[in-house]
C-alpha cells in the first residue's frame, strides 16, 4: 500500500474510518479443490455492465474488479484495482492511482485507459446498462446519457497509472459506486471482439476466469493463477450448476454432491433442516441489507390521509408475519435495516395496537372502515403474507382484496401508481451498496415517484428530498453528521407513514461439511451467497 502523500489526501484518508486496508485470511486455509454451487435460474449474463441478478452479482465480482472493493464479509470499503486515491477538499475530484502489474485474463496489462473506457461504456446508452444511473454524479453524465457526447468529460487519464474523476456535485456515495459491479474494469479489445456476446465471454482481472459455459447447464470458473491479490483464491475452481430446484439442490447437498445451494434452504424444508443438529450446524445465519415493506399509495383515497396510513401501520402484526416465514426475519420499525449505517437505534416505530388503529381511522372519519386492494407477487410465501395482512386489516374494518400477480405485473402496477397497497416481498429492496442513501432516492424520494419509478407509494416530500441531497453532499460517507442526517430523513419519512416497514430478512446459507473459512464469508453482505475468492475446502 503506497503512502498517500499530499496533505489533502492525508486529511481525507483519516476522515474515512470505514476504509479498512487488509483482510487477514484464515491461517488454516488450504489451496486447491473445486466446489459446486447450484441455482434455479440460468445465469443471464456475466457482463458487469448488464448483470443485476441475484446469482450473477457475486459471480461477476469474482471475474472482475473495480477501483474499489469491500473487505470480505463486511461492508467496509477497501481499495481494489486502485492502489490509493486522493480526494479534493470539496469532495468533487477523485484521483486514483492504479496498481502496477495487474493483467486481464487475456494477459494484457490494465491501464488508466481501461478505466476510462469502462466508465464510458457503462454510461453510454448503447450499452443499456441498468446501472448507468449510479454514475450520474460524474461530470458529463448528462451529455453521454442523452447521446450528445460519447465520452464522460469528467473522467481523465492523467498517465497510464492515474485516473482523475471529476464530479458535478459532491457525492458521498461515490466510492461505493466505484465498488459496484457496474464500475468493473473491462478490456476494450475483448468487448470489441465479442460485441453483445461479451456477457457470455467475460474477460476481467478477477480472481477467477470463465473456463466453460454450457448454456442452461453449468458454468465452470477456473482459478486465475496470476491474480494480483496475493494468496487468493484458494479454490482451483467453482462449478455452478443451473436449472436446479432448491429442493433438489438440498437433496443433493445431503448426498454430498453440492457444496452450497445458491438459492438457500427451501421454505418448506427450513424447519426440518434447522431441527436436525447435524444439518443446522452447517447453516450460517447473518443479517442482510433488506427490508420488506407495504407501500401505501399517498395518491389514492383514502390512503392520502395520514391518519389512515398510521392506522394501517398500527394494525399490522409484524411478529405474526415473521412467524409465517418460520422466523427467518426480524420485525422492522423503519425503512433502513439494522445493519445499515444511519439506522435509528431506539426508535420503536408504530406499535401493534388494534384499538389505537381503530381510533385513528375514526379520526379520519372512516370509523366504518373502507375497501382497498393489496398487490402481491404470486410466489410463496408472499400470498400467505398478503392473507395475514388482509386479516390484520379486517380487524380494523378495512376490506382488502388481494391481487396476486407475476412480478413484472406488480412492478408495472406499482410504477404506474395504480396500486393502493403493495407487499414488496420478492421484489423488496436489497441495498446495492451499504449506504443509507440507497434506501431513499429510488423508493422513497421524488425521483422515483414519477411514472414507472420504484417509489410505489408515490410519496414525494421536497423538504425531505432537500435533506437527502444535503446528506449526500458530504465528502466522507461515514461522517457521523451525515449518518445523523440520514437517520433524520427516515424519521421524517416515518412521520408521514408512506410505508409499513414489516421485516428485515435474515440470510441462511447452508454449506457442505468440507467448506472452510470464516462464517462471515458465507453471509457476505456484498457477495451473495458466498465470497468465492476467500472460501476454501478442508479435505
Amino acid at each position, binding site marked *: 500500500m503506497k503512502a498517500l502523500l499530499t496533505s489533502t489526501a492525508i486529511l481525507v484518508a483519516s476522515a474515512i474510518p470505514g476504509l479498512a486496508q487488509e483482510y487477514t485470511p484464515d491461517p488454516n486455509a488450504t489451496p486447491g479443490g473445486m466446489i459446486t454451487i447450484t441455482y434455479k*435460474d440460468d445465469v443471464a449474463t456475466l457482463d458487469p455492465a448488464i448483470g443485476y441478478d441475484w446469482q450473477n452479482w457475486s459471480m461477476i465480482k469474482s471475474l472482475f474488479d473495480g477501483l474499489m472493493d469491500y473487505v470480505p464479509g463486511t461492508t467496509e470499503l477497501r481499495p481494489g484495482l486502485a492502489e490509493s486515491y486522493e480526494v479534493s477538499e470539496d469532495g468533487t475530484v477523485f484521483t486514483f492511482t492504479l496498481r502496477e502489474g495487474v493483467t486481464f485474463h487475456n494477459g494484457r496489462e490494465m491501464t488508466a485507459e481501461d478505466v476510462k473506457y469502462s466508465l464510458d461504456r457503462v454510461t453510454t*446508452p448503447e450499452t443499456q446498462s441498468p446501472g448507468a444511473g449510479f454514475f450520474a454524479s460524474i461530470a458529463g453524465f448528462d451529455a453521454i446519457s442523452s447521446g450528445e457526447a460519447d465520452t464522460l468529460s469528467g473522467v481523465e487519464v492523467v498517465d497510464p497509472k492515474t485516473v482523475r474523476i471529476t464530479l458535478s456535485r459532491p457525492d458521498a456515495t461515490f466510492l461505493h459506486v466505484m465498488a459496484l459491479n457496474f464500475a468493473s474494469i473491462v478490456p476494450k479489445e475483448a468487448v470489441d471482439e465479442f460485441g453483445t456476446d461479451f456477457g457470455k465471454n467475460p474477460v476481467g482481472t478477477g480472481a477467477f476466469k470463465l473456463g466453460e459455459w454450457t448454456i442452461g*447447464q453449468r458454468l465452470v470458473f477456473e482459478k486465475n493463477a496470476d491474480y494480483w491479490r496475493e494468496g487468493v483464491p484458494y479454490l482451483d475452481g467453482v462449478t455452478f450448476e443451473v436449472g436446479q430446484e432448491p429442493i433438489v439442490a438440498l437433496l443433493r447437498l445431503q448426498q454430498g454432491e453440492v457444496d452450497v445451494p445458491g438459492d438457500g434452504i427451501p421454505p418448506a424444508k427450513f424447519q426440518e433442516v434447522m431441527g436436525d443438529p447435524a444439518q443446522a450446524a452447517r447453516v450460517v445465519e447473518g443479517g442482510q441489507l433488506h427490508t420488506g415493506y407495504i407501500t401505501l399509495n399517498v395518491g389514492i383515497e383514502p390512503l392520502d390521509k395520514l391518519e389512515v396510513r398510521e392506522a394501517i401501520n398500527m394494525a399490522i402484526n409484524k411478529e405474526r408475519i415473521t412467524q409465517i416465514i418460520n422466523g427467518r426475519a426480524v420485525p422492522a420499525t423503519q425503512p433502513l435495516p439494522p445493519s445499515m449505517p444511519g439506522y435509528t437505534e431506539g426508535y420503536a416505530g408504530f406499535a401493534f395496537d388494534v384499538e389505537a388503529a381503530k381510533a385513528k381511522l375514526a379520526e379520519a372519519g372512516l370509523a366504518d372502515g373502507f375497501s382497498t386492494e393489496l398487490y402481491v407477487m404470486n410466489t410463496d410465501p408472499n400470498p400467505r403474507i398478503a392473507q395475514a395482512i388482509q386479516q390484520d386489516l379486517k380487524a380494523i374494518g378495512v376490506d382488502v382484496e388481494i391481487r396476486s400477480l407475476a412480478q413484472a405485473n406488480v412492478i*408495472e402496477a406499482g410504477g404506474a401508481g395504480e396500486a393502493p397497497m403493495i407487499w414488496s416481498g420478492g421484489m423488496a429492496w436489497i441495498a*446495492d451498496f451499504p449506504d443509507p442513501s440507497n434506501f431513499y432516492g*429510488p423508493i422513497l424520494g421524488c425521483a422515483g415517484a414519477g411514472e414507472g419509478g420504484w417509489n410505489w407509494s408515490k410519496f414525494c416530500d421536497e423538504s425531505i428530498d432537500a435533506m437527502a441531497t444535503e446528506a449526500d453532499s458530504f465528502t466522507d460517507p461515514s461522517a457521523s453528521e451525515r449518518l445523523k442526517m440520514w437517520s433524520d430523513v427516515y424519521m421524517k419519512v416515518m412521520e408521514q407513514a408512506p410505508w409499513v416497514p414489516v421485516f428485515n430478512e435474515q440470510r441462511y446459507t447452508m454449506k457442505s461439511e468440507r467448506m472452510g473459512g470464516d462464517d462471515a464469508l458465507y453471509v457476505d453482505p456484498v457477495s451473495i451467497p458466498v465470497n468465492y475468492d476467500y472460501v476454501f475446502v478442508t479435505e
Partner: protein
Amino acid sequence: MLGYLTRRLVQSALILLGVSFITFLLLYVLPADPVRQIAGRSATAQTVENIRHQLGLDQPLLVQYWRYLSGLVQGDMGRSYLQKTEVATLIASRLPATLLLMLGGIVCELLIGLTLGVVAAVFRGRPLDQGLMVTSFVAVSAPQFVVGLLLLYLFAVQLGWFPIGGYGTFAHLVLPAITLGIMGSGWYSRMMRSSMVDVLRQDYIRTARAKGLTRRRILLRHALPNAILPIIAMIGIDIGIFMGGIVVVESVFGWPGIGQLAWQAIQRVDIPVIMGVTMVSATAIVLGNLLADLITPMIDPRIKLR
C-alpha cells in the same frame, strides 16, 4: 398426395403466422413493461427512454410486429433483452435436450399406456380392468411436480439407481421421461382400452377366433394394429400437451431444455425469447400433426389423403 401436402404446408404457414401475431399482440397488451425489466430499479427516466428507443419499443404495434416478422422470415429471431444473446443460439443450445426428453416421454407413455390399455381391454369388466382404469385416472391427475419429486426421492436419493437430476447420460433421462410419460400414459391407456374393446367386438376377430388362431396371435396381429390407429393421430396433438409438462419436469430434474428458458423469459418479460420459444413450439406442434396425418394412411389403407 403432392397437392395435399402443398395445401397442408400453406395452411401450416398461415397457422404459424396467426400464432405469431396473437402472441405478439398479447405480449404487447400485457401490463408489464420489458424496458423496466432491462433498466432495473435504479434507472433514471432518461435511461429508460434510451432503452425503449433502441429496442424500437416506442414504435406502434404494427411497425414492431412487421420488424419482428421480417427478421423471422430471414431466420433472425432477435436477441434476448436480458441475456443479449441471440435467441436462435439460446434455443439451439437447449432444443436437443427438450427433443430428447419428449422422445423419452413419448416412448414411456406409449409403453406404459398401451400395455395397460390392452390388458384392461382383455380383462374388461373384471377387477383388474377397474383397478387399472382408476390408476390411469390418478396418473392423469397427479401433479407432475409431485410425481417427479417422489420418483427422484425414491429412485435417486434413497435407492441411488439414478443421478439426482441433471443431463448427459441415459441414466439421467429415465426418471424425467417416466415422469413426463406417466401423465400421457393415463390418457393412452384409456384410449387404447376403448379402441381395443371396439376392435375385439368386430366380426373379423370372431372369424379369426373361429379359425382357431391363438389368443395371443389374435391380439397382437389382428386386433392391436387396428386398435392403435386413433393413437397415432393422438401423438401429434400430444406434443402440444407436452410443452406444459416439460416446463415442470425440466425444472424438477434440472433438465436444460427450452421449458426452463421459456419460464424464465416469461417471468422477466423477455419478449424475443418468449416469441422464439412460442414459434419453435408451434412449429413442432404443427409439424407433429402433419406427420401424424401423413403416417396414418400408410398404416390404414382405408384412409386417403385428399
